[in-house]
């Protein structure tokens, strides 16, 4: 039963989309989770979603409007998260709900059939086109190349933001660069994963990977691996059980985080043995 699903072209494309979306979303997820800017990430990804619906409503290129909306959100919420002196949760939360409100407004205003709008809501990984895959591949390649090129700066800003600034790294430029990458990734993955579900694919694999390693390099690797595995696993489950693929992917990724949090080698390491005996004060 399983091998036969790979005979369908739409399934081959869906698995390719799962590979590319799962990898890029979970890699940007590492940036979001390590910097503890989950609310900012939620806000930017939902802005992209609202932007895509805005594009559909006005018959514009929805990818372009999604990207512009996510950039505007990054420009608005970035400085809020940038200021260390106050927690941005409230203001970012307000913006997030405003974005969701806009998304519902745009879909409500749409005349006629709303199939493509609903695809953007729930995601439609089974109907991705070659063009969608090409865009996903380009964004994934840009993401990986930039991360490899600027790894030391990214590590400094992720783990030591204020130190990075003090040693002369243009930390704000690196920070906003990462938010732009988040916006681009969300835009490219909207069609396959869907606006309401994309955030779980950003945050869950990274949160799961966070439980298994202290090395940033391995964190990126495990997060990407988990992202791809939950996409493929979700597709298989949806095929076998005949349930929506987006829901299967999200729930599988949630189960993965829950399991790894319960059995985290990092937490076990902290409770038994070397950390406690070696700490001196």
């Amino acid at each position, binding site marked *: 039963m399983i091998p036969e699903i790979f005979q369908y072209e739409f399934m081959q494309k869906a698995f390719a989309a799962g590979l590319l979306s799962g990898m890029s979303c979970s890699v940007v997820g590492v940036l979001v989770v*390590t910097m*503890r800017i989950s609310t900012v990430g939620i806000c930017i990804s939902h802005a992209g979603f609202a932007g895509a619906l805005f594009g559909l409503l006005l018959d514009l290129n929805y990818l372009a409007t999604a990207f512009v909306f996510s950039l505007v959100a990054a420009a608005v919420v970035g400085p809020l998260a940038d200021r260390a*002196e106050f927690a941005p949760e409230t203001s970012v939360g307000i913006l997030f709900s405003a974005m969701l409100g806009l998304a519902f407004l745009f879909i409500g205003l749409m005349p006629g059939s709303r199939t493509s709008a609903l695809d953007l809501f729930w995601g439609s990984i089974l109907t991705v086109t070659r063009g969608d895959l090409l865009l996903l591949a380009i964004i994934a390649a840009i993401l990986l190349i930039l991360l490899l*090129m*600027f790894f*030391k*700066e990214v*590590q*400094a800003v*992720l*783990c*030591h933001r*204020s*130190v*990075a*600034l*003090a*040693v*002369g*790294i*243009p930390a704000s430029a690196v920070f906003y660069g990462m938010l732009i990458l988040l916006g681009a990734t969300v835009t490219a993955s909207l069609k396959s994963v869907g606006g309401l579900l994309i955030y779980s694919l950003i945050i869950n694999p990274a949160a799961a990977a*966070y439980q298994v*390693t*202290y*090395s*940033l390099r391995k*964190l990126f690797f495990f997060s990407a691996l988990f992202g791809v595995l939950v996409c493929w696993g979700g597709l298989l489950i949806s095929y076998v059980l005949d349930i929506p693929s987006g829901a299967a992917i999200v729930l599988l990724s949630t189960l993965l985080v829950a399991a790894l949090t319960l059995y985290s080698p*990092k937490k076990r390491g*902290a409770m038994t043995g070397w*950390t406690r005996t*070696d*700490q*001196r*004060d």
Partner: protein
Amino acid sequence: MHTGGQVKQREYGRTAVFLNSVTAAYGRHVAMENVTLSVHRGDFLGIIGPNGAGKTTLLTVVNGLAKVISGNAQILGEPLSRKNVNALRKKIGYVPQIQEIDPLLPINVRDSVLVGCYGRLGFFRRVPKALLEKTETLLGLVGLSRLGDRPLGHLSGGEKQRVAIARALLQEPEILLLDEPCASLDWKAQKEILVLIQELHNRLRLTTLMVTHDLNSLPQVCTRMAFMKGGRLIWEGEAAQALSGSRLSELYDTGITIASHEGKPVLLY
């Protein structure tokens, strides 16, 4: 102000930090007001004063992290501006106050120290072997040789402070800024860190500015001292002259007496 006359008398060329009537703010809150101060190359300046006196702000004016709203600052002979702030920061090591670190943070001690040289290295350059070796030497110097692979979040407060010092030194700075490097450490760790700082200051011929509440250790490590209160610099001069009971009592609004123990001044409060 006491300092004004002194500043004029000093040679300009040997000045590492020169602040001219600098006022700095966080948002709308003015944290430091009209401070004029000159620090020579090789000086070890201790900065003391009650909480909220503007001591940390003074340090962050020097490395361009604070917002200067009036006056001007010259650092290492260059006027501090938005254009050259990143270039200047590469020459200034900064050890901020101990901060909480997420125990799960994905960085180990060695990588955390290495961040110190990333600004100087610039984009697109890998860390050369010489700097990797220097990192190991510095880890040894601050007593963390065995802990290079340990996740940073697993260290104790004193160990984290040593990491921050090693990181600032890997930067090969000309100026070292230390913000309460001994706060919340036990007595032994305080003493060890102070000895380490003093040794490094002398060996590497640094210009050091250190904010502290530990008044007893200051006369031994500092060459000069600055007193701050309510955002203003109220006294600056030779460390040996700083220990006056009445001056310190006025600074802290509490009675401070200076006693002598084996020839060393000891503060009683």
